């Protein structure tokens, strides 16, 4: 009798065990994963300056940026639309973390090139990390031959920028970036400007819908000389993402689309209404289909 009870009891145990949530058991087997935080910003630019984002390995981005004249230039100039500054650029992801870019801007007829490396990546789960750190090194060369730039030597035409971009995606609705920047210009008017300008870039993204977000960006110059005539660059923008495209409609007081110009050479005052309407349009092409490993390697 006791035997029967035992056997019956064990049968029951097995059935209960089998009915128990198999999912829980699975989760134990799987353990916890590390999930990299995706899309802190949708584009590689916040407004004028870079964001922490780099292109994934094998992806090429074509970026067209426009800044029109100022809104307060009146109806005669169609509120600035008659004038335009343009930058055409390409950025390629060598790996998921290392990007290389080139561009040409009509401002000062400048060429620029840069390397961008995602050193640390925000992640949740097993190996959680609180923020992303991207390093940017860029160089610019102005070829403009008219006006004050006439007869400049090659080295006087060069400038360099180094930037450390720290950003955290606090939630799917809000990201914030703090980005100290150093711009070195080989030749400046020593009365008014410094060769090595330090600026602090602040940028934020607030989601409005899944595809549309509001961007703000501010670059504060920290060591400019007394009496210099320039202003801090301020920008407000709407970011619209549609699959392989990102459209950024921006309002800013600078026509600079590279570090040297917007950080050091913004001549207009946002609060006087010297605001340029403009846009950045990007198109991403996946060039190499064998997407490179996104694991722990570089």
């Amino acid at each position: 009798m006791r035997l029967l009870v035992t056997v019956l009891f064990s049968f029951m145990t097995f059935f209960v065990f089998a009915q128990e949530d198999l999912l829980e058991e699975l989760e134990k087997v799987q353990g916890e994963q590390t999930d990299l935080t995706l899309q802190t910003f949708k584009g590689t630019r916040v407004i004028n300056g870079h964001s922490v984002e780099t292109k994934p390995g094998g992806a090429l981005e074509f970026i067209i940026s426009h800044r029109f004249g100022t809104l307060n230039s009146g109806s005669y100039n169609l509120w600035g639309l008659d004038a335009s500054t343009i930058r055409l650029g390409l950025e390629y992801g060598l790996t998921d973390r290392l990007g290389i870019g080139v561009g040409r801007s009509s401002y000062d007829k400048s060429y620029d090139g840069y390397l961008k490396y995602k050193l640390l990546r925000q992640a949740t789960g097993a190996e959680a990390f609180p923020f992303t750190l991207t390093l940017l090194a860029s160089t610019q060369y102005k070829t403009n031959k008219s006006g004050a730039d006439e007869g400049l030597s090659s080295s006087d035409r060069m400038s360099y920028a180094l930037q450390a971009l720290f950003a955290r995606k606090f939630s799917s609705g809000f990201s914030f970036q703090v980005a100290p920047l150093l711009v070195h210009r080989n030749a400046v008017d020593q009365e008014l400007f410094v060769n090595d300008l330090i600026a602090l870039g602040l940028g934020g993204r607030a989601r409005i819908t899944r595809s549309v977000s509001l961007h703000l960006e501010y670059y504060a110059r920290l060591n400019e000389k007394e009496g210099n005539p320039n202003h801090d660059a301020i920008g407000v923008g709407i970011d619209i993402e549609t699959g392989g495209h990102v459209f950024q409609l921006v309002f800013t007081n600078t026509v600079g689309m590279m570090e040297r110009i917007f950080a050091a050479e913004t001549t207009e005052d946002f609060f006087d209404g010297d605001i340029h309407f403009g846009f950045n349009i990007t198109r991403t092409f996946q060039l190499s289909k064998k997407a490179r490993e996104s694991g722990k390697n570089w």
Partner: protein
Amino acid sequence: MRIIFSALLLLLAVSNTFSQRYMAEQGVISFFSDAPVEDISATNRNVTSIFTAATGGIAFSVPVRDFEFEKKLMKEHFNDKYMESDRFPRSTFSGTITGFSMTASGPQRVRAQGKLTIHGIVKEIDVPGSFEVKDGAIHMKTRFTVRLADYGIRIPQLLWENISEEIQITVDLTYNPK
């Protein structure tokens, strides 16, 4: 004494047959969205599943982040905009398989019934599949269709990547005794 011994032996035999678990790791789930502009497909090779032969109980766990696309940007959009994988990191299925026999040879037609959880939304499903026992391992395959709207996955109108309202899901797993 002998009675107790044989009872224990019986118990052991019973437990072996009835609680036999089968595990599948690195199972494959892929999906396909048929659209006029661009077909979109993705494959996940990191699916884990457990199957109990005695009861037909089955469970799947699918890490959403592990779906690999041809274009990396698609993967980011898939996770960030559609699946919201930071909030819902896993899709799961838990239910039962009916109509199988562990002793029959060749492919068998079976049904899977249970709860499918995608994007945090739970739906009862009932899908056909194929089941085959071979050299102690079980091969399971199924293909079924999921309506995105049923799981609260909305496609923004702005999006230029055309995504169809229904996507086809293919499951292919091999279970080994645990």
